[in-house]
C-alpha cells in the first residue's frame, strides 16, 4: 500500500483497485476542531481536482479536492456522528471517502511521504 500526498494536504492511499482519501495531520491541525464533514455520495464521478468533500470547522469551511479521477465508492459513514475523527485520526479512521482510480498515471503527479514532509517544512 502506497500513500501519496497533494499540495492541498489530501492523502490518497491505494490498495488494489480502491483508493482511500483523507486530509493530512497538518491540515486538520490548521483547521482546528472539525464540526461537520460533507462526504461525497457513492457513484459520483470525480475528475482530478474536483471538489469532493467539505470539511467544516467553527470558523471555516474547506473544500477537499479529488487527488485523482475516479468514481466514489463510499463516503465515510462514521463522520456523520463523529466528525472529530478527522482531528483524532486523520490518517486512519478519519478518512473521507473511497474511490476507484481511473488513470493510475495521475498518481505520478503526487508527492510521496518524504516529499510531502519536506513540502510542509517549507510552509
Amino acid at each position, binding site marked *: 500500500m502506497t500513500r501519496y500526498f497533494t499540495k492541498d494536504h489530501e492523502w490518497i492511499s491505494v490498495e488494489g483497485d480502491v483508493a482511500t482519501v483523507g486530509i493530512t495531520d497538518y491540515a486538520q491541525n490548521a483547521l482546528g*476542531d472539525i*464540526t*461537520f464533514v460533507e462526504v461525497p455520495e457513492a457513484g459520483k464521478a470525480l475528475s482530478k481536482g474536483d471538489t469532493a468533500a467539505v470539511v*467544516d470547522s*467553527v470558523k471555516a469551511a474547506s473544500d477537499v479536492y479529488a487527488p485523482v479521477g475516479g468514481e466514489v465508492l463510499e463516503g465515510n459513514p462514521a463522520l456523520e456522528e463523529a*466528525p*472529530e475523527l478527522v482531528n483524532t485520526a486523520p490518517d486512519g479512521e478519519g478518512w473521507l471517502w473511497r474511490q476507484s482510480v481511473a488513470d493510475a498515471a495521475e498518481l505520478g503527479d503526487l508527492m510521496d511521504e518524504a516529499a510531502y514532509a519536506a513540502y510542509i517544512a517549507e510552509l
Partner: protein
Amino acid sequence: MNAPNASGWKPEMGPAGSALPTTASGDKGLQLEEALIFELGQAGTYGVDLPEPEAAPVAGLSKFLRKAAPALPGLSEPEVVRHYTRLSRQNYAIDLGPFPLGSCTMKHNPRLNEKMARLAGFADIHPLQPKQSVAGAFEAIAELSDWLITLTGMAAVALSPKAGAHGELCGLLCIRAAIEAKGEDRPVVLVPESAHGTNPATAAFAGFRVESIPANADGRVDFDALVSRLGPDVAGVMITNPNTCGLFERDMKRISDAVHAVGGYVYCDGANFNAIVGKVRPGDLGVDAMHINLHKTFSTPHGGGGPGSGPVVLSAALAPFAPLPFVQRDDAGVAHLIEEEDAAAQGHAQSFGRMAAFHGQMGMFTRALAYILSHGNDGLRQVAEDAVLNANYILRSLEDVLDAPFAAAGPCMHEALFSDNGLAEGFTTLDVAKGLIDEGFHPMTVYFPLVVHGAMLVEPTETESKAGTDRLIASMRALAERAKAGDVTLKSAPHYTPRRRVDETLAARKPKLVWKD
C-alpha cells in the same frame, strides 16, 4: 461644599482574603441570571386580555382546525417585562459605551428618529392603501431619495432592497439586466480579495462567476492586475470604497474608466460611505451602482442584527433596470409610487422585476430622513470629517504599540487597521478582542479584512467624544502591552462578563437550536 465622608467612616469589610460566598439563587447582586420563557411560563397565565370569541368556526374550516393550542407558554405582563429587561442587561450596546466595530459604523442612534418613525401617519399605514390616502408617505420617500441622489451624485435610487446584501444583489441584477438588454454575454465579475464576504456571495447568486483581484502592497486594489483582466467577458467589478482596510481607493476613477472602456459596469460597496458622506460623490468617480446601508451611515439602529435597509443609487446607464416598485416625482414635483400596473406607462418596462413584497423598509426611511434633515449638508460633511479624524487619532495613538501595516503610507479614512504582528508567541488578535470586553468596550472587528494577518479593524465613528476615544486608546495600549508581554490572564479573558468564552465547537457539532422539555 462639604468633603464626602469627612468622618472617615468605613463599612465592616470582613476578614482579609476571605472567599466570596456563593448565592442560593445563582444571581450575584445586579448580575442576574434568567431562565428561558419555556421554563417560566405556565398554562392559564396570559399577558393580554382578550374578548370571548363571538361564534363557532365556519363549517368549511372544520377539517383544518388544530387539535390543541400551540405548545407555547403564557406569561403575565410583569413577568414578560421582567424577563426581557433582565435579558437586556446581558447585552453590550452603543448606549453603554464605544462600539469600535470596523466596517459596521456603530454610531449613536438618535431617539428623534425613533419618535418620528412611530408617528401613526408612518407606522400605522398599510402598504396597499389607496394611493390617495398615503401621499405623505410617498413624499417622505421622495425626499429621502432626493437627498441620497444628491449626496451620491447619481441618477436614481432603488429603495426596495431590505438590507446591504440585498442592495448588492439589486445592483448586480441591474448590471445583469443591462448586459442582457445589449444582447451580450459577460459571465465574470471581478472582486478584490479584500472585499466583504457578501460581495462574492452576491455575485454568485446573481449568476456570475467570481474572479479575485489581488491587493497591492499599500492595501489597495492592484490597478494593473485589474486592468489586465478586463475584457469582453467581464460584466463589472465590485469595489468597496473606502475599502475594508480603511483606505480610499485613489485609482477609483481610473478603474471606472477602464471598466467602462471595455463595456463593463462598476459596483461600489457603500458600506463605508460614512467616511465620505458630504465630501465625495461616488457618481463623480464613475460608479454605476452603490448600496447605502441606512443602518450605518444614516444611523438607523442595528437592533441586535437588523432590520437593515439597503437603497441602491444607480447611474443613468442602470436606472432603467431598477426594481419595482419605486417612488418617482412627476414634472410638478408630486411623488408617485410606480408599481407593476404603472411601470410600462411610466417608461420603466425594462425594470428587472420585484425583489420583495411591498415598497421597502419604510420604518428605516423615516428614521434616515429625520437623521439627514437633522444634520443637513453641513452636518453630514462634519460627520465624515469627525469620523475620519477619530480614526486617524486612534491610528497615530496606537501605531507605536500595535503593528499598523499601512500607517506609514499615509492617513486612513474612517477606520484604523492593525495586525497581530509583534504579539507574544501564542497570543492572538482574539485575545486582545476578549481583553477589550473586560475593559468595558465592544471589541473591534477581528480577522477581517483577510488580507492582513490577525486583522484588528477599529472604527470609532464620529459620535465618540475625545474623552471616550482616549479611554478606548488607553485600554488598547494596556492590552497591547499585555499581549506583547505574554500575560497569560489575557488568554482566558473575558473574566467579568455574564458568560466566559463559550464552546462553539460543541454548538456546531451537535446543533441544539430549539428548547425541548
